[in-house]
């Protein structure tokens, strides 16, 4: 696969019709100076997909997949500045054990934390506004122990600390958001790929529901409100955990029969593309998924992820 030339690069932004937004949405801010100084041929891809191609699955497979996917995307250093404060935002919504795939895989989270530190981050915070009781979710999902072991700071979101912020969206004008997340230098969005009763899938865009209070409001128009909050959050790096995938009875699950092993981790600077890929994994046409369609309409990224600079890896 050939890396884009500068011309192609610009052409693509024109195609997106959002040249001004491009550094933010298509490449990530850290990428811009790199692209300016480095030869064009080293321009890293926009999206990587790491799949397990081996036979016997190693126990630390999620770790391997994350390393490969991130490495191919240009490394964590592309996003994390030295001394940065990073918020890793997994899905820790439910009081379920890891094998039920209702939450992000703890190994995936742990490895991302380690990569952030390796890239020079000063502080890595891990937290989510959970659906079930936070302490139970954090511990039983395995995420808090894994993140703690990797040196992250575990943050419980405090109800009274949410602050009304101007979202300026179609539906969300003002909404309570957790300030500590917004104030970080970088938010790494780490959703788990799974089925969802109302949105059919829950992926990276929907994962941002974990930074807001009063989610009941969202449920009255999920695609629009989710697109609103996604735009507000200015996504730069999203990593989709599709190692174990809950394929039915989501988002809570609870039956091992519904959990399939896809042994895949995908990373992208384009959140819509990543969600389109995740939708396909779950057997849906991305265009029919409300959040993905709305994300494309909002020009937060492109639905046709294959048209991006895409790198697919077989890990073995």
């Amino acid at each position, binding site marked *: 696969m050939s890396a884009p030339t500068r011309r192609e690069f610009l052409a693509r932004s024109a195609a997106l019709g959002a040249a001004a937004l491009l550094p933010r949405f298509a490449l990530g801010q850290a990428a811009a100076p790199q692209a300016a100084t480095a030869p064009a041929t080293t321009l890293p891809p926009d999206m990587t997909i790491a799949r397990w191609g081996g036979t016997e699955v190693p126990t630390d497979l999620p770790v391997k997949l994350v390393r490969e996917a991130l490495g191919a995307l240009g490394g964590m250093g592309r996003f994390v500045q030295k001394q940065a404060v990073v918020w890793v935002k997994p899905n820790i919504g439910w009081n379920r054990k890891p094998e039920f795939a209702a939450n992000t895989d703890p190994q995936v989270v742990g490895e991302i934390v380690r990569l952030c530190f390796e890239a020079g981050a000063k502080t890595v915070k891990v937290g989510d506004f959970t659906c079930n009781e936070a302490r139970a979710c954090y511990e039983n999902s395995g995420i808090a122990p894994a993140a703690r072991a990797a040196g992250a700071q575990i943050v419980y979101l*405090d109800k009274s600390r949410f602050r009304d912020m101007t979202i300026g969206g179609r539906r969300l004008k003002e909404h309570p958001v957790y300030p500590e997340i917004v104030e970080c230098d970088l938010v790494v969005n780490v959703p788990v790929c799974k089925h969802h009763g109302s949105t059919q899938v829950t992926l990276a865009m929907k994962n941002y529901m974990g930074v807001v209070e009063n989610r*009941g409001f969202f449920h009255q128009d999920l695609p629009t409100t989710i697109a609103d909050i996604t735009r507000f959050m200015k996504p730069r790096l999203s990593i989709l955990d599709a190692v174990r995938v809950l394929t039915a009875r989501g988002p809570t699950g609870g039956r091992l029969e519904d959990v399939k092993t896809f042994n895949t981790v995908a990373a992208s600077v384009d959140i819509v593309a990543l969600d389109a890929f995740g939708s396909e994994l779950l057997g849906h046409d991305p265009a029919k998924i409300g959040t993905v369609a709305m994300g494309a309409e909002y020009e937060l990224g492109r639905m046709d992820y294959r048209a991006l600079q895409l790198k697919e890896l077989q890990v073995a």
Partner: protein
Amino acid sequence: MSRFRVRTPTVRLRRTVQLLVLALFLAVVLAARPQPGQRLPVWLESFFHLDPLIPVVTGLAAHAVQWAFLLSVVTVVVTVLLGRVFCGWFCPLGTVHTLVGRLFERWRPARQREHWHRGQLAKYYVLAALLVLALFGVQWLVLLDPLVILYRTLTVALWPAAQGGVESTATAIYQADPGVGTWRVTSVTEPVYRTVRDLLFVKQQQSFPNSGFVLGFFLFITGLNFVQRRFWCRYICPLGALLGLLAWRPWLVRKLDTGACNQCDLCGLTCHGAASTGPGTGWKPQECLGCLNCTSACAAGGLKFRWELPWRHGLAPERVNLSRRGMLEAAAGGVVAAMVLRASPQARGATFHPLLLRPPGAADEADFLARCTACGLCMKVCPTGGLHPTLFEAGLDGLFTPRLVPRIGYCDYECNACGQVCPTAAIRPLPLAEKKAVRLGLAAFDVGRCLPYAYGRNCMVCEEHCPVPDKAIYFAPVTVTGRDGVPTELLRPHVDPAHCTGCGICENVCPFKDQPAIRVTSANESRHAANQPILGSGSGYPF
């Protein structure tokens, strides 16, 4: 003019022990919080297990022996040997009474008679009535057992109030973010707040309905110290009475050297239990709390505690004399109370209160009431803060016993904490797999409010949160035509009674915050076959 105070090493030691035990009690209360994925330690219940009144009364009422209460044998043996030192040195509520009594001293006349009063017999009659009540299957320790009262008050009233204070102060500082130059006050308050929150709070913004009544009762009985100090211990406490009976002939007795006594009555003035009949004279071991104020206060050095074999000492004339008539009256009172307390239709099994969602593993109502002392331990450890003290939903008999209030908190699918800690097994300790199969009630949609039914909008929050793997809520697609004549596709949710456990999370998350459009009632609860309508079995629904 402050009244005479005893300050000797012995009395200081006793006060220190009292304060330490009270602090320990508070620590054990605060330590009772769910630890994800871990069993709760049994010592969280230890104070209750030291209390011999609970196994006697609940045992009689429920016809069951509970081995955990073997620990109370320690209390019994100590009491037989040393007298009511449990009351004087150990009982945390007794210590609270001591402290409150001390506080009131300032406003009381300087000298007050602290001698034995016939009214002190009342507690023995309370005990008798309680036991008769228990024989009738009615257990009413809720307002009578000191440890239960204190535990519940701390759990549902005092501690939540303290937590609220900490939270609102920290939030106020956080929002104002005051500081000097670049230095912020929050750089100190936030870490402190977070530590306290993570180590001591069960749930953010935890609070309990009816806590005002719980607190009111506590303030009332502690306020009685204004009338006389340790009023509760002297006149009411049935545990004190039970221990008093055990202290009929203790091995450690108070001895007066009549030659030395000059009738100054310093001993009487300082007596916690009102155990002597007059200046320097007779002493009733059943009433003595072993506080050692008298021997320490005696300037003449005429009072001493000495070991003496019970069959050697001649305490008989000083014994508390319970009249046969009084006993009969107490028993009659117990019978009447049993009738009145059990007069509630729920207790008779004639009806089921829709809001009475008992914790998972709760015995059937009659047995539950025979065991549950309303101590509040289950309410303390419920991680969602879903268990709350009833007022009259369970009848007077069930005052302050726990019920799940889904609007406030739900029963977590992965939790069985309440059964782990219940000291009397009113909530049985169920393995998680078994607990998951227990039905607390049944959810039902209020189709006059539910968004897809009443307002033509999809919603689905309830379905999303339903923790049952097979999902007790499912959707049926419909097309409805609105006011504007435009047809809309909608998904309307239904409850499948074959899967619903009544955990209440659907009610908890419903966007209607005032009156949820899906509500759980006690129908279909596993505890009562009589409270189960004939429901579908998962196929062939009319929808």
